[in-house]
């Protein structure tokens, strides 16, 4: 690892100021599990690390009127073991459990995961399906951005060099909503998704009609893919197996999957279909169950 200067701001404002001062040469250090690894492999060489761990107020999980809010410094493991998160968002607990290993989750943060923008990120597709938003702070003040509009390319986001994500906001789900995240890997644990599928179905519990749905894919392209055509097949319809199969097929045709060392493009497409189908079935059950 090359030497760098460590900066330790005590407030978000100070952090932004430092980032703005040092521009591209600076990077934010939160959990650091991804960043330190890349620095050790000498793939990135920041001159300044802005360690935000001193900003204690960024470490929280709290309930607001209509959303769950998670601070930028909250480690993944804390989210995974939070009874509150489990009560309101069992699917988030389940998803976080599949990331890395306990040791990584004890240190790594949810925000860090999103900002790194690894195409195989697990949180990204699920949180998009949950319509999560980011509160982003920069020198010019704060803005709130839908996570869906956050990712722009492999490892790239709309975050500018002098901005910091302060918190993630996940709106509470309406009644009749079922959400699931399925991840296809080669190993049972500690593996990256060949395809990660987040599925959400909002049902009208009276007649079983699908009011809204979201299908978001991870691991298949440079950024999470929101398959709107597939969703269109479900919206306003009563969901049954054949409708699910049709939507799954549509979703798999909506992506142009990447080919890499983990899987071919063709296999990714096939797995998209399989896991969207499975996800929809599971989400349907969850939705019906309340």
């Amino acid at each position: 690892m090359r030497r760098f200067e460590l900066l330790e701001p005590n407030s978000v404002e100070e952090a932004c100021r430092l980032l703005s001062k040092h521009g591209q040469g600076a990077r934010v250090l939160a959990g650091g599990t991804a960043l330190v690894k890349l620095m050790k492999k000498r793939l990135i060489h920041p001159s300044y690390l802005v360690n935000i761990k001193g900003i204690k107020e960024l470490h929280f999980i709290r309930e607001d009127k209509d959303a769950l809010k998670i601070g930028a410094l909250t480690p993944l493991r804390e989210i995974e073991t939070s009874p509150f998160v489990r009560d309101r968002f069992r699917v988030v607990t389940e998803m976080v459990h599949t990331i890395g290993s306990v040791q990584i989750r004890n240190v790594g943060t949810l925000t860090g995961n999103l900002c790194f923008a690894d195409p195989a990120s697990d949180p990204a597709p699920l949180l998009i399906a949950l319509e999560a938003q980011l509160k982003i702070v920069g020198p010019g003040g704060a803005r709130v951005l839908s996570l869906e509009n956050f990712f722009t390319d492999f490892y790239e986001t709309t975050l500018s060099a002098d901005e910091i994500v302060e918190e993630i906001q996940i709106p509470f789900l309406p009644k009749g909503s079922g959400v699931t995240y399925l991840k296809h890997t080669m190993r049972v644990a500690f593996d990256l998704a060949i395809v990660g599928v987040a599925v959400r179905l909002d049902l009208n519990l009276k007649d079983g009609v699908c009011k809204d749905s979201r299908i978001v894919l991870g691991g298949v392209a440079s950024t999470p893919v929101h398959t709107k055509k597939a969703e269109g097949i479900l919206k306003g319809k009563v969901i049954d197996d054949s409708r699910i199969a049709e939507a799954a097929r549509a979703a798999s045709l909506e992506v142009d999957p990447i080919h890499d060392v983990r899987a071919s493009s063709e296999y990714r497409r096939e797995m998209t279909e399989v896991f969207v189908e499975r996800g929809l079935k599971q989400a349907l059950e969850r939705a019906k169950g309340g």
Partner: protein
Amino acid sequence: MKRELELKVNGEDYTLEVEPHRTLLEVVRNDLGLTGTKLGCGGGECGACTVILDGKAVKSCLMLALDAKGKELWTIEGLAKGGDLHPLQRAFVQQGAIQCGFCTPGMIMASKALLDENPRPTEQDIKDALAGNLCRCTGYVKILDAVSTVASEERKR
């Protein structure tokens, strides 16, 4: 430029001078001379560098040493007291959970963090807690047995 790093290691206070780009693993092994914690892959994949920081298992190879400032660190060297093995160490020894031994300190520390937090884990809990630790020798069967034994002794109590 070196910075001061105060921390508690295996129950004792230390003040070190550390450069910001040093990982916790480097400082534990080189500055503190605690070579029981191993460098395996250096990329957070093998778990041989697992230590316990403020009660949590962490991979010390992916953490900057200065991030341990003011914290309480436990390494494998801190477990046995005056020749008295920790129950996990005893179980690993007695039950054949050790072969080449390179993964052992990390395995034991990851298990300890689990048992400290959850003294009565299920088999799945144990597997989840050790899911980030590689062993190429044992096939994990006896490691799982050893941790399960300690957990069930705890259950009997």
